[in-house]
């Protein structure tokens, strides 16, 4: 068997002590379409970054044509013939299609960009992906799907030996996807090594020859695709031992409906019907970026939203401002706590008391003693130790998240909206947060939890709605909750999908 064009050997990578890849090996061979599968956060993007030189591995090595390369950088990767189609677009909107495709590798004549050669070469790349737009069109004028095709043409322009595509079809139409499929089959025939990351299992089944599956940063499968079915792939991606991470699930007393919306739309979230009851933890699952954040921000009044019918805690209509939402008993804990949830350079107690400042004291002076006692009791309840006058950024990620939760607790919210509250949080804090959430529900609050962590949804929620492309595509009751069911619905695989 020939040597792989590019390979990773036993690579490991950690970010801030958090191990995202553990002794992972992968080989990209000529003439093979290789699928890389895994849930959100399984380490796929990190692996791509290692293979393209954007990040160095902590341990292990990257091999080009069978020889290990120290200091594998992006320019080294380009020389080795590795091209990446990134998930987030890397185009310059003011430049034309042609200028974007050639960016960083322009043909030059007399020190100037040789537009004639550029036009010739970019036209060839565009023809391969079926882009028939005028090359002079500004990329900013193109719809998202066409930009993705430009991005692919940009990779092809560099005539790669190994082509890595990170979810290339997520913004493509059916027709464009078909064009891409045919192109990849042609490249395979020409002997290009292709690494294909996708969340669409049927695409993977139809196109790929070989599969590597990552779970929690480790390889769970590295084999020919022939002989595995979609069910089998899903099983290899999920299913870890929950241990005693989660509180034992016991049903709470079923309470009154506190939020009820019909035909709710906000940003990407479209036409959503939702009933949230007191005493339940309602999960929202799905792949990252399927409209979950828009749904939550819309309910919270932070983003303009509309609904045919809406009732919030006895009030009709969607709240049109955060203050209104707060007054109705809503609290919001964001995924990006550093940007949306906390004032990092201010003290822990300042952050904890922030939502209460406006209400508590009216027009009189601040009551320092009262504030101090309140902050202390919150810190005690959440076991945040140490001096509360330290800036909140001095805390670990997990403790920061606890502060972001704690600040709402004095208000006794009737409805908690949480967006991925355990992202980047250590296991111990996760356990505490899970306990808190079940506790809120037991006390009669309604908790809406959006999460990219599937086990969380399975073990914590009374019901889960799965979102895909802005809509709820499945609703799963507690008795039927399983990681397989959620992942299958999120990926649109037609196994175990349950109608609403």
């Amino acid at each position, binding site marked *: 068997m020939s040597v792989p064009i590019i390979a990773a050997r036993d690579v490991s990578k950690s970010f801030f002590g958090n191990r995202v890849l553990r002794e992972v090996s992968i080989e990209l061979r000529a003439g093979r379409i290789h699928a890389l599968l895994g849930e959100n956060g399984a380490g796929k993007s990190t692996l791509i970054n290692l293979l393209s030189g*954007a990040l160095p591995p902590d341990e292990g090595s990257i091999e080009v044509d069978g020889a290990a390369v120290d200091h594998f950088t*992006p*320019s080294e990767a*380009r020389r080795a013939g590795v091209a*990446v189609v*990134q998930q*987030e*677009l*890397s*185009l*310059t*909107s*003011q*430049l*034309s299609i*042609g*200028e974007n495709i050639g*960016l*960083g*590798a*322009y043909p*030059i*004549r*007399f*020190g*100037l*960009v*040789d*537009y*004639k050669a*550029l*036009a010739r070469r*970019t036209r060839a790349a565009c023809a391969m992906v079926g882009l028939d737009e*005028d*090359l*002079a*069109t*500004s990329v900013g004028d193109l719809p998202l799907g066409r930009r993705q095709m430009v991005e692919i043409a*940009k990779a092809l322009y560099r005539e790669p030996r190994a082509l890595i595509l990170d979810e290339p079809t997520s913004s493509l139409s059916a027709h464009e996807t078909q064009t891409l499929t045919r192109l990849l089959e042609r490249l395979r025939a020409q002997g290009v090594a292709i690494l294909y990351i996708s969340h669409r299992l049927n695409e993977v089944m139809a196109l790929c020859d070989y599969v590597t599956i990552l779970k929690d940063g480790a390889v769970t499968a590295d084999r020919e695709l022939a002989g595995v079915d979609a069910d089998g792939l899903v099983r290899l991606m999920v299913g870890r031992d929950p241990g005693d991470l989660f509180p034992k699930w016991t049903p709470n007393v079923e309470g009154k409906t506190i939020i009820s919306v019909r035909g709710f739309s906000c940003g990407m979230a479209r036409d959503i019907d939702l009933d949230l009851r007191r005493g339940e933890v309602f999960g929202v699952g799905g792949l990252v970026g399927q409209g979950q954040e828009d749904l939550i921000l819309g309910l919270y009044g932070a983003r303009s939203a509309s609904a045919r019918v809406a009732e919030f805690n006895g009030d009709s209509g969607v709240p049109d401002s955060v203050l209104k939402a707060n007054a109705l008993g809503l609290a919001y804990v964001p995924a990006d706590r550093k940007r949306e949830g906390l004032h990092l350079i201010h003290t822990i107690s300042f952050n904890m008391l922030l939502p209460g400042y406006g209400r508590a004291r009216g027009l009189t002076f601040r009551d320092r003693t009262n504030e101090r006692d309140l902050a202390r009791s919150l810190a005690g309840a959440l076991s945040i130790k140490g001096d509360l006058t330290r800036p909140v950024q001095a805390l670990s990620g997990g403790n920061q998240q606890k502060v972001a939760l704690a600040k709402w607790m004095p208000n006794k919210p009737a409805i908690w909206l949480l967006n991925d509250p355990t992202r980047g949080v250590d296991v111990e804090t996760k356990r505490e947060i899970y306990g808190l959430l079940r506790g809120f529900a037991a006390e009669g609050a309604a908790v809406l939890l959006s999460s990219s962590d599937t086990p969380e949804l399975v073990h914590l929620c009374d019901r889960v709605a799965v979102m895909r492309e802005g809509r709820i595509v499945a609703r799963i009751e507690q008795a039927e909750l399983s990681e397989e069911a959620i992942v299958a619905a999120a990926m649109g695989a037609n196994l175990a999908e349950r109608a609403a």
Partner: protein
Amino acid sequence: MSGSDPVLSPSPLYWPVQRQRNRGVRALFCVVAAFVAIYAYLFPGLLSIGGLSKFCQSWFPLALVSMAQAILMLTGGINLAIGATVSLGAVIAATTMSGPLGAPGAIAAVAFAGLGIGAICGLIVVRLRLPAIIVTLAGSFIIGGMALLVLPRPGGEIPAWFSDFLAGGTPVAALLLALIVLAWKLYLATPLGLSLYAAGENPVAAYRSGVPVDAARIAAYAISGLLSTGAGLYVAAQTGSGDPVIGQAFTLNSIAAAVLGGVGFLGGHGTMRGAIAGSLLLSVMVNVMFFLGFPPVAQYVAQGLIIIGAVALPQIGARGRRA
């Protein structure tokens, strides 16, 4: 030049790209043309060689500093040292012009100072990853101080022939501007020049695509400095002497012109032709208001309102389209 030169001969891609870039500034060009027409109506003297020369002379330094500002805004930065750099250019010109090396020496000194100061600012911003607004603000104090050190009081001397050549009754300024615009077009046709847009809009993606992001940004600072001291040289020629604080007003006016011309603050958005048109609009506007008998205070207020309007209109338009 050979027949396949990408700039001087039609190419299947170059000219269509240029036409695309014109699209965004077409409305601005119409407004500028309308203002020029009003100006010509109010002041028919504009339509003579002498009148045109005079007007171009009053506009030329603003056009240069607007370009200097626009380059940096395209990289996602801003230059608050333009005024001070103009002053420095003026005093260097006024003190070296009558020296042993004469006019060529003075021009070389001015150019060298501009490129050097710009490159140093650029190095500080890019290498130390400091915000451009802070570095150029600090730079404006340092450069302004240097100008006062070179020439504490207005003085120095520009030979009369030099002043006559640049700022006499001939449209030399218009010719110079045409040459500078051509040079800019050539620069933008180099890989480094074109990279400016990519480096300004999305530096990480540009870096990953193999664009020399740091070099493109430092070069932009150097060019910005060169254009600013060049404007200073011209101002010195106009007044016949050097003044260490003559450039002050140019800083804010250059930002105003670039903004009028549709250059965005976030980098990668806007065109040089827009910035130049913006500076022309600003110059004509001032003259038109003068001829309409606006008191000076009203001129400032009107100028401010027009700038806000120019920035707000496209925003409101975009919101309307989205809704």
